[in-house]
């Protein structure tokens, strides 16, 4: 069934779940996986994730809707987030946003008709010294002038940045892999109740 996680992703999902003492902990990672698969988080995927981590659909929906990055209907291939918090605001974020709206012909919060760009107001992106800044699919651009923005949009439009900027849904392109022969494995809270091997006897720990 489309929009549920596909087989490859279910395999990966199970690997992820296995890393945590409790399956529920994988929820956000699996929501990212669903968004990577479909570009946004579908109801079917929410149901499916609930089955995988042992929660109700309502609980998964509750978690998903708490977080900014999850979208529940399609967005553009490129999500342009222009920071508008204090440091960037002091350095001309508003002008940058107006320029972007004008250039793309859409208001912040909407998507271009060709489905290529979604423009959003964003809060502090941890690049305050490089203001004004923006992110395209969560990759930073620093000290952005209107001209820089035009150039960026042009590059994206002409797929010049495909190597660097994956389509919306994919955040990190590198995944952690824990080689089974090196893995310690999840440490469940209920089953372990002794100090780890390398810790000295409590007596010494007291001091």
């Amino acid at each position, binding site marked *: 069934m489309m929009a549920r996680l596909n087989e490859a992703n279910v395999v990966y999902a199970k690997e992820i779940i296995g890393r945590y*003492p409790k399956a529920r902990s994988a929820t956000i990672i699996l929501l990212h996986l669903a968004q990577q698969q479909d570009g946004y988080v579908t109801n079917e995927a929410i149901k499916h994730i609930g089955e995988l981590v042992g929660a109700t659909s309502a609980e998964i929906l509750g978690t998903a809707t708490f977080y900014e990055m999850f979208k529940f209907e399609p967005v553009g291939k490129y999500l342009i987030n222009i920071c508008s918090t204090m440091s960037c605001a002091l350095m001309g974020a508003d002008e940058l946003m107006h320029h972007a709206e004008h250039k793309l012909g859409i208001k912040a919060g909407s998507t271009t008709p060709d489905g290529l760009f979604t423009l959003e107001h964003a809060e502090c*992106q941890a690049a*305050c*010294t490089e203001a004004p800044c923006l992110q395209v699919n969560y990759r930073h651009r620093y000290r952005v002038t209107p001209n820089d923005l035009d150039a960026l949009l042009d590059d994206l439009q002409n797929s010049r940045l495909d190597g660097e900027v994956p389509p919306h849904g994919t955040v990190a392109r590198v995944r952690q892999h824990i080689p089974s022969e090196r893995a310690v494995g999840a440490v469940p809270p209920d089953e372990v109740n002794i100090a*780890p091997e390398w810790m000295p006897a409590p007596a010494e720990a007291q001091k």
Partner: protein
Amino acid sequence: MNGATYPHAAGFVAGDRPRIVTSRFEFDDAHSLERYLATDGYKGLQAALAKSPVDVHADVKSATVLGRGGAGFPAGVKWGLTPQAVWPRYLVVNGDESEPGTYKDRLLMEVDPHQLIEGCLIACYAAGLSQCFLYIRGEMAVAQERVATALNEAYAAGYVGKNILGSNFSVDIVLHWGAGAYVVGEETALIESLEGNRGMPRLKPPFFPAAIGLYGMPTIVNNVETLANLPWLMQHGVEAYTAIGTPTSPGTRMVAVSGHVKRPGVYEIVNGTTTFRELLYGDDFCGGIRDDNQLKAFVPGGGSAPWFLPDQLDLPFEAKLVSAEGSMLGSGAVIVMDDTTDVVAAAYTLVRFYAHESCGKCTPCREGAPWLERIMKRLVDGHGTTRDLDQLFEIGQMICPGEFPHPSSERLGLEATPFPFRMTTICFVGPSAYTAVDSALTLFRDEFEAKIVQRTFIPVSVGANQ
């Protein structure tokens, strides 16, 4: 201005000063295991493993490694707060950096991820933490890629996982990432989020995470920069570490200076001695206010910190002195406003931020922050009333009853009210929503009044239900 900069470490400005956590920043391949090993990588871990966990813990205690996440709580002391004989215990690395003005943890993760990994290992070894979860902010794609790559390398090379470096020390570091919610940076919300829930803070006292945390087990939550200090500390020893800075604030700390300075950037400064004046005006620091304008005010410790005036420029980065003057060092973020700044508009961006980031749990934050935001918007747009100014203050009282911290001011003939404040909320997001409003209103009331048009006010009766 002197002080080198490097394109691969955007914003970082080296200088003629000690570097503990940024020691590899000039290498554009600092993030690779190869470079890391070539530059003393994992030496700190080896030094640690040569000692007993108890001794490593003792070192971290006596080095007084202050938390860099905001609270400034000594890491060594925190590790000691875990209840006796309760296992397993977990480490949760707080890489959610999203406090307005703050930019350092991301830099550390992107440029020198192995240093962080090594720091995590040292912490787990010393405090007997059986599993580590490295929580990176969701919107940091590159940091996630760099850390993932570094972890994959480190696992392959035997630095992470089973029997690390052939010892009986075994721990997994699991990379976890968020999905966009500032409040998740608060440690109890971080734990909720890591459990797959909505990131709503849990009430702490009497149960701090160190006692009851992830899955109800003792959990140490430490900031990225805090942990990044450990390899250097272990390799060079407590003396070398405490030789830098002051006894109460040893070592260095990373500070991001943004806003109206000539050279905004991220600086690793000596803790406890460096003053705000040096930082803003120093030649190998920010080099002064842009266009040689006058300094109007600055945020000394991230968006949550009450503002300072030029009066406070000579304060050093020393928590006690700063809180006595009514603010906090927080997350090492200084936001500078020159005399051209519209402080009402500037404050508004922060109110909007916190209102948007409220988790919705506490009534005063959920309802009060958006209320403040609407009034501030009205004022910025020039539709405000005098009543609005009192209203802002009254809403502030509902979130933070009593006198709110603010600095002393010669111009206003104002005595300082020391940090912190009383609060009716669980976490600091609620109060933070009011902080900038209070600072701006207290220190620049005239600018608010200048924006006001007279209008009368009709109270709505709560008794509407009779």
